[in-house]
């Protein structure tokens, strides 16, 4: 690719990533949503995190890998335990990273 086309691509990707985040806040921030929509939106966060967690654990390389060879599943167990026990993002992250480092180097 030429330098110009790389910059055109960067600009296009920038718009595609910028507009969906900015437009709702810019256009809707003075709009009051009906209660049913507000309730639906309150479930977006738990739902998307359920989906992201599942994909990041069960398809760590981009393709589904539901088997005992998938060390992400093993690391998930102590990580979930420390998340429930500590409710601390930082401690959970450290536990997860250490478990993964051990599994990666030992298995």
């Amino acid at each position, binding site marked *: *690719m030429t330098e110009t*086309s*790389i*910059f055109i*691509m*960067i600009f*296009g*990707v*920038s718009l*595609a*990533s*910028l507009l*969906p*985040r*900015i437009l*709702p*806040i*810019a256009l*809707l921030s003075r709009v009051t*949503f009906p209660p049913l929509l*507000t*309730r*639906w*939106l*309150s*479930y*977006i*966060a*738990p*739902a*998307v995190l*359920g*989906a992201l*967690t*599942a*994909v*990041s654990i*069960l*398809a*760590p390389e*981009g*393709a*589904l890998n539901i088997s005992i060879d998938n060390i992400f599943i093993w*690391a*998930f167990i102590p*990580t*979930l335990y420390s*998340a429930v026990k500590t*409710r601390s*993002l*930082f401690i*959970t*992250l450290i536990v*997860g*990273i250490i*478990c*993964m*480092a051990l599994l*990666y*180097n030992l298995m």
Partner: protein
Amino acid sequence: MKNIELIEGMRDSIPIVLGYFPLGFAFGVLAAQVGLSVFQATMMSVLCFTGAGQYIAIGVVQAGGAIITAIIANILINMRYFLFATSMVPHFKHLPTLPASLLSYGLTDETYAVAVNRYQKHKASIAYMAGLNLTSHISWILSTFIGAALGMLIADTDKFGFGFALPAMYTCLLVLMISRKSDIIAAISAAVICIVIGYYLPASMSNMSNIIAATMIGATIGVLIND
């Protein structure tokens, strides 16, 4: 008051920074490998703040594909932020629109989840958003720059366990997000649905459309159960 909230936002971004660093670094290394200059790679992380989207764009460059392919893939991948941003609107009612809109550019899966967790107990503020979103974005830019400039010198980060930073973060944020019984049901439904869609339509895994569909269905199930 403002300073405290700014610092709280920065503090809450520390786990995100830890998670982004290896990813931004790896992006910088890859971008340099496919022939982007250090400046181009860094500018990409300044102007686009979309991990998966940037990886795909780099893949398109490598394959010599059309620019429009990278852009369409990014429209699909970034569609979920439309949902996230819309779900933030009720929290932002009292904020000035312009800075709230501009700072929403720093909205990612991680900053979104941390912010939603924060707004359960605190009012949203521009200072907190700035601390959280800008620190996260700066770490993304910086790690890209380091990866593109020095990538060849440093061994792969997998063996240090950094590959699990984002999964660990999602796991904890998921736990923090659950306060109602219907939250658990919405989360588990979305998890199962996105895996099932990914199983039958593997292509949906790469553009993350399975996550968008599963999120919308999961949220609908949450509303139907409602407790």
